[in-house]
């Protein structure tokens, strides 16, 4: 079973994302901030990270770079999920290590489409 870490400061968004992921037989864990997520990944690198790059007090791009520098940091598919939707921000995220990008708001169909694109389903 594939394994995803959902990183978002909104408990509601985390629950919605986890429910959708689990409906596709992807095991999902949650982290509410980048530091927790980084510690989690150091112990148990997931197959995918669904990451809100606008977490309070977090430099989203720096988080992406830190993950990619970890041992096995190349392994997870990283999908940035954010309300930032201009081309420059998308390009920066891709340059920092993101594989895909979801512009909020999203729904089940969009997440399903992205999971298919990155080969998780």
């Amino acid at each position: 079973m594939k394994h995803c870490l959902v990183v978002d400061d909104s408990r509601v968004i985390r629950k919605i994302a986890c429910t959708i992921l689990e409906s596709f037989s992807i095991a999902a864990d949650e982290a509410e901030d980048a530091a927790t997520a980084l510690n989690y990944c150091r112990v148990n690198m997931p197959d995918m990270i669904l990451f809100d790059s606008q977490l309070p007090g977090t430099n989203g791009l720096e988080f992406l770079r830190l993950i990619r520098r970890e041992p096995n940091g190349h392994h997870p598919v990283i999908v940035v999920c954010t309300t930032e939707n201009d081309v420059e921000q998308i390009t920066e995220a891709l340059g920092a290590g993101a594989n895909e990008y979801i512009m909020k708001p999203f729904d089940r169909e969009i997440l399903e489409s992205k999971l298919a694109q990155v080969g998780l389903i």
Partner: protein
Amino acid sequence: MTPAEFWNLADLVRRRSGLVLTPDKIRFAESKLAPIAGRFGFRKSAELYAELAHPREEIAQAVAEAMTVNDSSFFRDRAPFEHFRDVTLPRLVKARETQKRLRIWCSAIAHGQEAYSLAMMLDDAGLAAQDWKIELVGTDFSAEAVSRARAGVYSQYEVQRGLPIQLLVKYFTQEGENWRVNDRLRHMITFRTFNLLDHFGWLGTLDVIFCRNVLMYFDEHTKSDVVHKMADALAPDGYLVLGDTIGSVKLRPRFEESDLRGIYAKPRAAGMKPARAAG
């Protein structure tokens, strides 16, 4: 809408577009007709329903267009497009390396996502830089759908259904809340309103036909007629790409399934046998 009015509608739509409306679509029909009634100045939808037995030409066409299904997405169902990129296109490029010309028809394009998906793949293949002439034609029964496709403007929701983010960045520019396909891609496609019930002669000989998720809405006679016309228009080594759901479409003897579900080729000429390995 009364049953009699619905049958008048179904008859009108079948004669104009070949689409079969079954009685379970009555609520769908009412929701689609409400804006048509407003556009043509009817005070109530019921007044439009009463007109359906003998409608004016412009009303009949608007009603028939409104009943088409325009839902689509970029790289819809993925596999047919990956097959096009990885198998169909390389085979045809090899087969046409002398002529350096490919003709592809994307029929029933709805709002254009599938046609642009093909255009992105063709652009990425870099054939134009090698002096290939690529003709990509996108058609739909609905003039409104063709107009939207030609404009190439999509909502944030639409560009997130099936379109990899790298391709969004490469081929689109942001316009407020929407995203517009760049001119280079738009100019790769010739858009045209076209009814699959009409003659295909103007299309000439085609190397690939995409006709996805359409035939199942037609009656048996129309399905058969369209399949024969597509077979006549397709080059002997061309490909027909249908949707996963083709219902009761009878493709034999004009087509046989290729190495991927939903993709069809013409049967090899009778008497032709595969070359036997030496020894």
